[in-house]
C-alpha cells in the first residue's frame, strides 16, 4: 500500500510532465515545419549541408 502511495503519484507526475512538454512544443510551433526540421539538423553554417 505504501508503495502505491509513492509510485502512482510518481507515474502520474511523469505522464503529466510529458504531456506538458508536448503541449509546450505544440504551442511554440515546433510542429509547423517537420520536413524542414528533419533536414535542418544536417546543415552546418560554415561547411554546407551535410558536411
Amino acid at each position, binding site marked *: 500500500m505504501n508503495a502505491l502511495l509513492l509510485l*502512482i503519484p510518481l507515474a502520474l507526475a511523469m*505522464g503529466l510532465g510529458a*504531456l506538458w512538454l508536448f503541449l509546450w512544443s505544440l504551442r511554440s510551433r515546433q510542429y509547423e515545419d517537420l520536413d524542414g526540421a*528533419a533536414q535542418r539538423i544536417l546543415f552546418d553554417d560554415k*561547411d554546407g549541408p551535410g558536411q
Partner: protein
Amino acid sequence: MTADARPVPAAEQRSLSGCAHCGAPVPSGERFCCTGCEAAHGIVSGLGLSAFYARRSGEAGAIRPDDEAPAFDPAPHLRDRGDGTAELDLMLAGLTCGACVWLVEQALGAEPSVGRARVNLTTRRLSLRFAGGEEEARRLVRLLARLGFRAAPWTPACLSAAEDREMRELLRALGIAAFGAMNVMLVSVAVWFGDDMGDATRHLMHWLAAAIGLPVVLLAGMPFYRSAFGALAAGRANMDLAVSLGVLATALMSLSETFRNGPYTWFDGATLLLALLLAGRVLDRAARGRARRAVAELLALQQGSVTRLLPGGATETIAAERAEAGDTLLVAAGERLRLDATLLDREALLDTSATTGESLPRRFLGGEPLPAGAINMGAPFRAAVAATAAEGSLAALSRLLANAEAAKGRIASLADRAARLYVPVVHAVAAATFLLWFALLGATWQEALVPAVAVLIITCPCALAIAVPAVRVVATGALFRRGVLVAHPTALERLATADHAVLDKTGTLTEGRPDLLPDPERDDAALRRAASIARASRHPLARALVRACPDAAAAEGVIEVPGKGLIAGDARLGSPSFVGLADGFEGMTLVLREGEATPVVFRFRDRLRPDSAEAVARLHALGLSTELLSGDGPQAVEDAALAAGIGPWQAQASPAEKAERIADLVAAGRRPLMVGDGINDAGALALAHVSAAPGTGTDLAQSASDLVLRAGGLAPLPAAIRIARRAERIARQNISFSFAYNLVAVPAAVAGLATPLIAAAVMASSSLIVIGNALRAAKDPR
C-alpha cells in the same frame, strides 16, 4: 567544400547525365540544360555554396530558372517596420529539399541588406527582413529567380493552408487523449488482473481512473462533440454523433460504477477510443493538408499585381485588389489582365482562351470592353479599369463558386451515410438492453447501465469511424505521389462513381499554347534563321518558334515593332501584312521574308497534348463516356475531338451553356466528371458531380475543382479513377467488416459478458484489421 575553379567535384561528376544546376537531363557532354542554369550555377559557386549540389535531392528540373515566367513585383506586399527595414513574406516555388532551404537561406544571408531569412520547407514560406525599400525587395526577388526559385506573394490562401488551427487543435486533443489512455490503463490493468485486491483498494483505483479519465474525455473529445452538435443542429446524424454519445455515455456509466464501487470502470475504453480516432483524424488532415498547400502554391503563383499609370507618366505596381474603377493600367506583353477594363489604345490582341475557350487570339478595338483573365498577346496597351476586383466579373464568379462549394459540402460521405443507419439501431439496442436488465431481470439501474453502455462502446464506432478516413489517407497519399491533388474531403468518393467525362479543349486536351506545325516543304535553315530572330521577342508565336529550334543563336540587331513583327537587317519576321503579303492566312501565322527571297510561312496550332488520346481511351476502358465541350470554333473542336477519340462534341459553348450542360446531365441522373482549366469552365466545374483542373489552368478553375492535376494534362486521371474506385471498394469492405464484428460483439455485450478487457481487445484488433485493409488502397489495381 568550397567553390572555386577546382576540377568538377565528385558530386557533380555523379550527376553528369543531368544539368549541373537543376538536374534535368542534358545531351551528353553538356553541363547545363540552359543558359539560366549556367548563370545560377555561377552565382551559387561564386557565393561558395557549391556544397548545395552534393546534397540536392529534389525533382529534376524543379529549380530551372524560367525566363518566360512573368516577373513578380513584391512591392505591394512589403511591410515597412519604420526603422529603415522592411519585412516580406513570400511563397517560394521550386523548394523541394533541405538543401534548397539551405541554399536560399545562405544566398540571402550573404546579402549585406538581409537581416533575417528563414524558410519553412513544409509550407514553402520565406520570411525576410532586410534594410531597404521596394527596390531592394525587387533585387532580392530577382536573385531568387536567378537561382531558380520563383517567388509569389504569401496569399491568405497560403496562410490558411499553413496556419492550420484545426490541425493544432486535433494534435492537442490527441496528446491529451494519448496521455489519458496510457495512464488510465495503468490503473485499469491493476483492476483487471488484481483479483486479490481489497474492496478499498479497488475503490481507490476507480477514483484514480475517474480523476484522469473524466477531464481527458471532456477535453480530448471536443472536436467530436462540436462536429456532432453541428450535425444535430442541422437535423442530421453523423459518425461523430455516434462517437460522442458512445464516449459520453461510457464516461457517465463509469462514474456511476465508481460511486457504487462496481467491478470495473470503463474509462480506459473511452480514452483509448478517443486516442485512436484522433490519430486517424490527424493523419487524414495531414494528408489533405499537403494537397491543400500544393494547391495554394499553384494559386499563389498566379496572384498578380497590376501596373498603374500615374498622371505624370510614371508607373507603380499595386496589388490587383487595390486598383479602382477609372484607373489607367499598363498591360505588358504576355501579362494576364486581372480586372475588367476598357481598351484605351487603338487596338490590342488578346488571348481569351481562359474566358471563352477560343484558341485564336482576338483583336479588340479601342473602347471595347476587355474581359478579366485574358492574356495580352500583342504589344503593351493601356486600359481603363471598368470594375474593381471585388465587383468585377471574376468576383461574381467567385461568389457563385462559393455557393456551389457550400452545396457540395452537404454531400454526405460514405461514413456518415453508414452512421445514419448505425446510430439509431445501436442506440435502440442499448436502450432495449437497459430495459431487459432493469425491468425483466431485476437489476438495479446502475447494474443495468453497464451492459447497456457496453453495447455502445463495443459496437466499435472505432473501426467504423476509422474505416473510411484510413482509406482516404492512404488513397490521397497515393494520388499525391502521382501528381493528383485531392482538395475536397469527399472528392474521392465522388470520383469513384463518375460515369461520364465532360472535357474542355483548350488547355485541357491541348497544350493551351501555340506550337509550330511541321511542314515538310519548309527549309530547316529558314526555321533556324527565324528562330534566331524570334529570340528577341516575348510574343507567344516567337516563343513557339524558339521552342521548335531551341539551339538557334540569338540574332543581333533585332528591332521589335510591337504587335506586328521583328526586323533584323533586311529580314522581317511577323504577320503577313507586316512583311507585305495579303492578309489571307487562316489561323496563327508568322512569315519570314529575307530581302527578295520567297517568304517562308510558319503556321502554328494549339496542339493536342501527346497523352490526351491515350487518356481518353483509358477513360472509355473504365466505362466512362466522354464528350468535348469547348468555347472554341467548330473546326478546331471537331479536329480535337477526332484526334482524341472523343465522340460527341459541342463548339462555341458560352460559360453559361457549359454550366447548363452539366446541370442537365446531373438532372438526367448522370454523374459527370468535368475537366477544364479556364475561367469559362469554372461554373461547370463547380456544378459537376466531381471536377478536375490541370495545374496549368487558371486559379479560378483550380479553386472550383475537387482535384488538381499538378502536371497538367489528363494522363493521371484514369489512374486516379482506378484508385478512387478501389478505395471506395475497400472502404465498403471496412464498413461491412465493422458491422460483421458487431454481430458477434453485440450479443455478448447484451448478455453482460463483455468486460472492459474484452472491449479494449475488440477495439484494438478491429481497428488494426481495418487499418491493415486500408493500406491496400495505395496500390494502383491496373
